């Protein structure tokens, strides 16, 4: 019996070529983007979307063209944080920040669900979400952007999909809260990012100065040799975000 690779007749389906065309579509669409930054954590509830939205606005106030991809498909919050609206993607929000999000497509309160067989949907659901992310990147007419921020959900799955879709690992801005539990979870994500070859731009420590005690940002900064770019208090001012924007 011959092997798969020994059968070399042309493949009429051209599946590899179709996948290649999808990747080229993403690359062509993002050709006008100066920098792509992934905002990630590995830990849920640390304020990634909050940081992403306010950072995007601060960069925009500095005169840059900014876009945000809400890669948290199951818990989209970017449109609300940016007060974004419009009928044509990308929607435009506060300070002119553009965005695309599943929250712009789902009815209020509706969970992300896909048509298809419900039994063992775990087999295909991940691929469907990756396809949605690919379309967010490749089908939105972003135009020329100085910065495209990618707001990632907790965990590493979306980051790994992005590495594949972008063809290269994106630079990473890490968000943590001060606690040791957050530090330990974020450490895993940062290690994975380093292993994939992402540049670590720095760490933002959020929710500083209240009940949450610890030194997560300082610990991770020492461990990974990357700076703490900002410590965000519970009630930040616009200047807090403006200073962070200048440090990127």
């Amino acid at each position, binding site marked *: 019996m011959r092997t798969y690779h020994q059968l070399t007749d042309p493949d009429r389906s051209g599946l590899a070529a179709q996948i290649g065309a999808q990747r080229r579509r993403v690359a062509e669409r993002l050709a006008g983007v100066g920098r792509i930054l992934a905002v990630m954590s590995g830990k849920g509830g640390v304020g990634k979307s909050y940081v992403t939205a306010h950072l995007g606005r601060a960069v925009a106030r500095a005169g840059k063209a900014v876009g945000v991809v809400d890669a948290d498909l199951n818990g989209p919050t970017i449109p609300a944080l940016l007060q974004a609206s419009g009928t044509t993607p990308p929607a435009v929000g506060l300070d002119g920040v553009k965005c695309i999000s599943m929250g712009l*497509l789902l009815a209020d*309160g509706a969970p992300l669900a896909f048509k298809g067989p419900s039994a063992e949907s775990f087999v295909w659901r991940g691929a469907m979400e990756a396809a949605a992310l690919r379309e967010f990147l490749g089908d939105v007419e972003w135009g020329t952007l100085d910065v495209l921020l990618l707001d990632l959900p907790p965990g590493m799955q979306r980051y790994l999909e992005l590495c594949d879709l972008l063809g290269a690992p994106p630079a990473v801005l890490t968000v943590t809260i001060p606690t040791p539990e957050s530090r330990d979870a974020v450490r895993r994500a940062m290690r994975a990012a380093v292993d994939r070859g992402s540049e670590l731009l720095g760490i933002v420590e959020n929710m500083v100065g209240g009940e949450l005690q610890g030194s997560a940002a300082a610990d991770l900064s020492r461990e990974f040799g990357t700076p703490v770019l900002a410590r965000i208090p519970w009630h930040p001012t616009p200047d807090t975000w403006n200073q962070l924007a200048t440090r990127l």
Partner: protein
Amino acid sequence: MKFLCVECDQQMAFTERALPGDGTLAATFKCPKCGRVVAMLANPMETQLVSSLGVEIGGRTVPAEAFETVGANVVTGGPAWSADAQERLGRVPSFVRGMVKKIYADYAKERGIREITPAIMDTARAELGLEGM
């Protein structure tokens, strides 16, 4: 996936793709030497997996539309749509259809409307300034 005609030791050639129903995807292959035809039947879960990759078995005959996978597969929720309203929404360009649909759905939900009809769309369009949508 490739198919080998064992008797002829020959790679079989793709001939046809079909969706016969119940979520089955059928792809037929023919041995170019002996003419034997076989059909590969994918179960609904496998069919959905192929669909989620955004590829066409047998090759693409038309270029991919913007938001093709999202538009075809995401259940957006919200109020019901009458057949006429669905038909009208279908005429909205695919790359804006999702956002326009949400705007109508949110409009209806805020007003306690259970089914979106063309008349509701007309009213919403006038109130929200959605000319051409």
